[in-house]
């Protein structure tokens, strides 16, 4: 049984239909000692049925430390979004529940080819960043 209503599934399907590129959701997880990993997996499982461009790649955090390090992941559950070849540098730490699911959908759409919501001026400002930068946005599941 899906977590999403049929109406929501349809809306998402329509939105995902506009994507032009594949999106890989790398899902970093482990079997033991991770209460929210299962919840994250259940949420992510909602996505591939809604678009053939979305794939979930599960990475065992304990067994595949190299891949976790490659994506800068040091805790689970965690997601990294990537295109066919490229890292989007968008990460989600924690199960994407509540409003974070909406953020995840928007990030997937962006990686899948939707145009940026940044204004041209802001795109130019962002383009001028010339040193590595991290942005951590803290949210809660309400």
């Amino acid at each position, binding site marked *: 049984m899906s977590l999403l209503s049929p109406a929501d599934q349809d809306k998402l399907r329509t939105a995902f239909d506009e994507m032009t590129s594949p999106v890989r959701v790398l899902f970093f997880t482990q079997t033991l000692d991770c209460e929210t990993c299962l919840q994250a997996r259940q949420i992510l499982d909602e996505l591939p049925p809604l678009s053939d461009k979305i794939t979930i790649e599960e990475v065992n955090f304990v067994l595949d430390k190299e891949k976790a390090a490659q994506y800068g992941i040091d805790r689970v559950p965690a997601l990294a979004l990537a295109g066919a070849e490229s890292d989007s*540098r968008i990460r989600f730490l924690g199960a994407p529940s509540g409003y974070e699911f909406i953020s995840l959908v928007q990030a997937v759409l962006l990686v899948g080819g939707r145009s940026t*919501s*940044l*204004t041209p001026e802001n795109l130019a*400002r*962002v383009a001028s960043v*010339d040193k590595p*930068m991290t942005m*951590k946005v803290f949210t809660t599941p309400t």
Partner: protein
Amino acid sequence: MAFANPLITAYAVEATEFPDLARRYHVSGVPKTVVNETIEILGGLPQDLFVEQALQPPA
């Protein structure tokens, strides 16, 4: 922003799942954005203001 510049990585962090991170960054209300460990943006801001604050030089 992360998608637009390869030097930028963005993390959406669920604070209740990772209380150690919430403590480290003194998160008492959300949303809270921490840029490069030093710049803090509380709440949701209009895009222009958010980008401006995120890109300000370190204090």
